[in-house]
């Protein structure tokens, strides 16, 4: 008991301790910052030295190519509507690849998520297996599967669709299972008690709870997949990317077509971004309102 006063430090002691602590924190922060800056600088220098052209030469030329394309497109501005019409089917194909792969990925992702959530899985012992499957699916970049499938199936939209669908399934499987973990298991138990089988329990007990969140994530994925399907087109999987590569490899003289494709892609991405943003906003707010009522 008598130690109480001697044990509690004086104000001076507290102050020295505090300044000591802040100084130490500052030193650590400074060291971290220096290390970070050094890493960025070293990384940049390495990347620069392993690149074909260097940054110092190149940055002045960044706008050369867009300027070239735009000036030629401007000269042939009259051809723009015709070009837009010509490449509209390719845009439709890109959108179809994205939509179909999102749909298939969502279905597969739902299955993976249900299979890897405790309390919902059909075979609880296989939960780790399904988790690993969705981890691996998520880790595969689309281009890997697309390139291999193009070799077997030939060029076209199907390899891209399968590739994107697999990645989507993995990504959504993880997000969905996080959503599932917050869902109440009581409806499932209730349905179980009246003799519902597994699919009925899931369809009637789980999906209505998680539906809005699922749709919201799937919409976000659709945005990402449009970009992915454009990129995969560039390696030969059809759609806008394929047309873009063709137009570009022609070089000068076909830049009006390249500009039209740029424009289509840009407008599509922006429009889909905005629309899905609005929809997602409504979905999440709608569900909040539903929960409150």
């Amino acid at each position, binding site marked *: 008991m008598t130690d109480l006063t001697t044990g509690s430090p004086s104000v001076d002691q507290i102050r020295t301790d505090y300044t000591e602590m802040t100084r130490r924190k500052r030193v650590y922060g400074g060291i971290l910052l220096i290390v970070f800056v050094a890493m960025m600088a070293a990384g940049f220098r390495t990347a620069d030295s392993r690149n074909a052209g260097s940054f110092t030469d190149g940055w002045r030329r960044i706008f050369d190519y867009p300027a070239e394309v735009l000036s030629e497109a401007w000269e042939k501005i009259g051809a723009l509507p015709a070009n837009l019409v010509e490449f509209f089917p390719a845009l439709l194909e890109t959108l179809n690849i994205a939509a179909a792969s999102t749909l298939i990925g969502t279905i597969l992702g739902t299955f993976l998520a249900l299979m890897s959530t405790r309390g919902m899985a059909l075979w609880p012992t296989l939960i780790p297996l399904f988790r690993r499957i969705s981890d691996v699916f998520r880790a595969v970049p689309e281009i890997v599967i697309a390139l291999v499938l193009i070799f077997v199936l030939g060029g076209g939209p199907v390899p891209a669709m399968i590739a994107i669908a697999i990645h989507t399934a993995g990504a959504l499987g993880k997000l969905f299972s996080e959503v599932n973990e917050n869902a109440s298991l009581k409806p499932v138990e209730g349905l179980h008690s009246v003799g519902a089988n597994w699919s009925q329990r899931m369809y009637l007990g789980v999906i209505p709870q998680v539906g809005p969140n699922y749709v919201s994530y799937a919409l976000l994925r659709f945005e990402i997949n449009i970009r992915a399907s454009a990129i995969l087109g560039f390696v030969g999987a059809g759609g806008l990317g394929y047309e873009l590569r063709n137009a570009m490899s022609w070089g000068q003289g076909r830049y009006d077509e390249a500009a039209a494709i740029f424009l289509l892609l*840009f407008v599509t991405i922006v429009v889909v971004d905005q629309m899905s943003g609005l929809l997602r906003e409504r979905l999440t707010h709608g569900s909040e309102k539903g929960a409150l009522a």
Partner: protein
Amino acid sequence: MSTFATDLTIDELKAEADRLFNRKRLTNFGLPALVFVYLVYVFFAFDVSGMAQRANWENGKTLIADSYSYKTHVSRDNRTGEVSTAIEGERKGRYPDGEAPDWVSLGETTVIDLEDGHIVRFGPKIIEYEIPGFGIVRATPIRSAGVQAELPAGEVPDWINVSKNRMAITTDAGRLTVTRNRSEVFRYFNGWELFWFTLDSPYYGKPFPELAGLAARGEAGAILNDFWTNKMWRHQDVAWAIFETILMAFLGTLGAGMIALPLAFLATRNFNPLKSVRFLTRRVFDFVRGVDALIWTVVLARAFGPGPLTGALAILVTDTGTFGKIFSEALENVDEKQIEGVQSTGANAPQRYRYGVIPQVTPVLLSQLLYFLESNTRSATVIGAITGGGIGLLLTQAIITQKDWEEVAYYIVLIILMVMLMDWFSGWLRRRLIQGETGKIRKARDTKAKSFFLP
């Protein structure tokens, strides 16, 4: 319970319930039907049936077989009688002259043991293949008269293909082709050939304990060097390629974060009163994000040429837009009270930002940066395939040759491991960095849930 309208009759209530049930039933069946109809449309739009016909399943079979097995070629030049052995028939995998694996015994008559009783003999004049349960097939390549084949009596089975100038026999044990100029045997093995050392290395074929012993006796450097400079698998180049890919993701993500943070202040309502600047900054973010990474890659590759810098810059530019949007949303949700508190102690503007604002948004910023670091490793692989850098380039090159499928399989495994490692690393770092500030974990999650911006 009291929310029900009490002035409804039972019939009206029943009718309402029926309507509700009908609507639910309709959506329950209508939605899946709609999805199904769309998928049917896609089936025809993508011409899946036509593609199934055009598809080259033979390619698929070689791809799968080649990704886990390899073949060793033993070939005899029928004019000079010279016999050479090479793995995959490549110069890099060739045995030195006068040497051969132990199932090939060189001599005047070279005997090749294909196991299970299958034996091929390259005689001075006659090529023999002893097939158990079938008999001995003899072929005599003559320069002027082509290949004269002698088969056991009876019908010619479909795994033997004989014509005037060529004989080919394919069995489970291997494959023999004889033409006028060349006799060649393929024997198939499981595994990835020469993965550790090539044939010119003194360490080829040594078991692991022996290697460990040699390494302990001071040869570790030489062993590592032989492995590192393996001409067949090019471990050095592959390691560099993976490093380049991660470098692209690292530079792109963090560079984008560093550029986007100051710009994000300009796009917020609470830090920037100028509406025109705010509008402009937001449109810039939208524009940069809308011009996809693909287009940025194409444009930047023109200016900088192929390589990791182009990839890093493409990621940087695209993600500046994304981060600008996320960060400005986070900054708009900042709590004013902390800033006022800091201000009340007499802090000037930079100090207010440093101690009032930054600590509040750090968790959101860090977790987003780390999420994107992982997803950008994947993007860097894809961008590398287009612009020519990193593991993406190696993968496309290996696929274009259309025969090094074991390398393709190796790269795919490496890519998946790389992405999973980055995923684990970013998750670990996120937990380490954000857990320290306990009070803010929930806040970070809240904002995340709101913006829904996970890649």
